[in-house]
Structure formats: C-alpha cells, structure tokens
C-alpha cells in the first residue's frame, strides 16, 4: 500500500526552485534513507509531506487515514514554556484526538512506555527546558512515536545526541522498522546506510536507489555530492552491510 506519493512536485522560494519535479513513493515496509547536500531540498520535501509547505506544482497524495509521526530538524519553541516532558510526548496524540483533545489513563501509560523506549522515563515530570539538547531530542522522538504511526519521518534525528544514544537510536529504528515505514533524513551517508533498505538522493531532484549499496560513482551520476567527500578520506565504496 502507498502511504505517501509525490508526483512531480516542485517548490521554491521567490523564483528559485529548491526542488524540481520530485517523484517519491513511500510504501508499507519501506526504510528509506534520504541523503543529499545541505540546501539540497531534503527538509523541503519533508515539510511538503507534512503539509507545512504548499508545493508550486505537482501532487501530494496521502490517504486520509495515514498517520505520520514526525521529528522536525529544528524545534521552534520557547524552552521556558511551562510544560512537562510527559505532556510534550502526549502532544503527539493531538492528531488522533483532534481539537478537543483529552488525555486518559491509557494515553498516559502509553506515553510512559514510549518514554521508556527513548530512555527518558525517569525525567517524565521535568520541565522540557531543564533538559539537555540530546535529552530533548529523545523526548521529541517519543512525541513522534506515541501515536503508533504507519510512517515515521525523522529529519536529522542524531543532531544534538551523543554517540551512545545515536547507536541506541539506530537499534530502536531497526526494531520499529519491522512494523512501521521509516523515512530517515541525514546529510551524512556513512551513518545511515547500514540501517536503511533503500536510498533517496536529493539535490534539487530526487533519485531513488533501490538498495543501500552506494558507490561514489552512483552518487556522482545522481549529482549528489555528499559526505563521502567532506569526511576527508574518500572511500571508494561505502559499506557493504551484513545482509539480513
């Protein structure tokens, strides 16, 4: 089943196109890694899928009953806002409960369960502003997970988090990917290729690569100059992963 479909979607700021005629289909069971240079349009595609931007042209098809969990790249909130960690995670249920959203015991139990998964259960009652950047990121991942979405979109999830949680996060994602489609955005290929099943390369246009085997030649042919180069040493072939 198609969860999300983009048909030749274009978008830009002023006259400058950021993405041009992008086609993308996300199906059940997908685990897509989206890579590409800074400013290449990764976040723009995500924001279009999430309904935060209206495309210039093209079609975005998302069935009404599809629930998408979302971790934005940047968080625009006042960290002195009086809200507890538990309450932030519960806000992920807003799209399920609608405008008169209420929270019952079951919801709270579910929120604690999710906080356990991201290792934040002990801090449930803390104010969000008292947390470190990495801890906040875990809480926002919890907010994306609480509604048990069919598709999880994570925009640069490892920004701010430490190495240990980064590994934990990838393990968690692999577990989640057994029942949830995932779209994982990163500007750093090396990190994500070992987890994902397919790769989408975004640099104004989107090139879909139906495996996670990526070589520099492939990237070049996609016009997708990314971290293979900026890391200083140029691996000829990134990853052969262990096949499942």
């Amino acid at each position, binding site marked *: 089943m198609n969860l999300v479909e983009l048909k030749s979607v274009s978008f830009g700021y002023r006259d400058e196109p950021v993405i041009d005629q992008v086609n993308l289909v996300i199906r059940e069971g997908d685990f897509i890694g989206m890579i590409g240079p800074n400013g290449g349009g990764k976040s723009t595609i995500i924001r279009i899928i999430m309904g935060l931007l209206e495309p210039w042209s093209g079609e975005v098809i998302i069935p009404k009953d599809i629930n998408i969990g979302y971790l934005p790249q940047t968080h*625009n*909130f006042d960290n002195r806002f009086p809200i507890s960690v538990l309450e932030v995670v519960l*806000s992920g249920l807003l*799209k399920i409960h609608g*405008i008169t959203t209420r929270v019952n015991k079951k919801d709270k139990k579910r929120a604690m369960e999710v906080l356990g998964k991201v290792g934040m259960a002990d801090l449930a009652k803390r104010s969000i502003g008292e947390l470190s950047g990495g801890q906040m990121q875990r809480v926002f991942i919890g907010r994306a997970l609480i509604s048990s979405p069919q598709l999880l979109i994570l925009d640069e999830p490892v920004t701010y988090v430490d190495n240990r949680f980064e590994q934990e996060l990838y393990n968690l994602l692999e577990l989640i990917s057994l029942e949830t489609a995932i779209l994982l955005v990163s500007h750093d290929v090396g990190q994500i290729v070992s987890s994902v099943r397919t790769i989408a390369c975004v640099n104004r246009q989107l090139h879909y690569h139906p495996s996670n085997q990526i070589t520099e030649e492939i990237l070049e042919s996609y016009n997708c100059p990314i971290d293979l180069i900026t890391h200083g040493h140029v691996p000829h072939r990134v990853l052969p992963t262990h096949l499942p």
Partner: protein
Amino acid sequence: MILDFFKYDFIMYALAASLLGSITAGIIGTYVVTRRMVFITGGITHASFGGLGLGFFFGINPLLGAAVFGLVSGIGVEYLSRFHKIREDSVIAMMWSFGMALGIIFISLTPGYAPNLMSYLFGNILSVSSSDIWIMGILMILVLALFVPFFRLIQYLTFDEEFARTSRVPVSLFKYLLVGLVALTAVVYIRVAGIILVLSLLTIPQNTALLFSNNLKRIMWLSIGIGFLGSLLGLMISYAGNIPSGASIIFSLVLLYLTGSAGKAIFHARKKQYKHP
C-alpha cells in the same frame, strides 16, 4: 471599617470587577505570558486609544471604538507575523504610537467636551457600572468557552506551533480567536486599570504563578487567585489611603510577586542547606 467597606454599591461593583477580571486576565494573561506576546498586547492596548478618540469624535461609545481598534491591530499583527518579511517588534511599536497619536488628534478635534483622559490612561475600578459588569461577565464566558474545551490544543499550539500544524488541527483559526480575546480583554479592562496599567493584570499574577509551577493549568488557577488577592489588597489600600485604585492594585500585585520570589529563594536556600549540611 471593613463592614463600612461593603455598604456602598460602587464597592460591590469593584469587587465583582476584581473577581471577573482576575478570572479573565488570569487565563488570558497566562496565554500572553507563555506565548511571549506581552509586547504585542501592549501595542494592542495603546492602539485602541485611537478607537477611543474616534468614539468621542463621532459620539459613539468610546469603548466600542477601542474594541474595534484593538481587534483590528491584534489580528493584523498576528496575520503579518505569518510572513517573515516584517520586523514584528517595529511594526508593533509603530502601531502603538500611531494609535496614541490618532487618539489625541481625535480628542483634540472633538468640540466642547473634554473627556477625563486620566481615567482612561490609569483606570478607576471604583467607577465601574453595572453595565461594565455585564460586559466583563460576557467576556469571561467567552474566554471560558474557548479555554475549557480546547485547553490542551491551546497548550500544544502555544508550545510548538509548527508541530501542531502537522496535526491536522485549525491552528490559525485558534490563534486569531485567541488574539481576539486578548484584544477584548485589554480593552474591557481599560476601565479598571487604564491603558497604561492594564498590562500589569495580564503579566504580574502570571509571573508570580510561574515561580511555583510548570503546569499550565495550575499556573492559570494560581494567576486567578493571586490576581484576586492583589485586587482586594489594592482596593483596601485605595480606600484606606485615598489613592487611585489602579495604582494601588498594581502596587499590591508587585508586592505579591516580590514576596513570592523571596519566599521561593529562601525555600531553595534551605533545601540546599539541608542537602549539603
């Protein structure tokens, strides 16, 4: 003397206004403070002075003119802030002073009758009439009608607007409704605290409450209680010392805030001492 206090109608009206005002301003002010709209609210209040002057000039109810100006400027700023092309704070400052200027122009053009400007600038809770109480009551009902059923939605969209926008809820509609209520609250309570002082009802009790809680609902309840206590205290000081009520209420509210801050500091110092003897 305390019993004397209650035998006048105007005192009863003042008490009713204090209670209604504490509830309305307690809730709306919590929204204003946590969404960091204090400056916008100041702008709305002062812009409404233009409507006040217009009301005098055309011989219509000045508060009606003020309400229209308040609503237009509030909704206008909320609308403009969606486009990041403007410097929001500069626009507010222009609106703020332009409203005041318009008000002065219209009042000076109004022939004959010169309204008591002091009462609009500083307010007088002792001049509240029964029709004012009605208006305050209706406004309180409107505020409750928005905040009781939609409390969590309002909390979430205030905390992280963009995330709320991804949740298929009408975020913009609620933001306009909320800024509308902020404008109406500011204008209705000009009667009590005046254009210059009304901001204090919307910020001081809330910041006192914020000293003690990180729970939005509890902050609203605390703000209501602190606001009411401060108003009562202020009324008594006003009565006893023959001081303008707006000033004495704000004096009391600040006194409560300072007491709260000091109390919190002492409590924390003791806790520390206990932990590290």
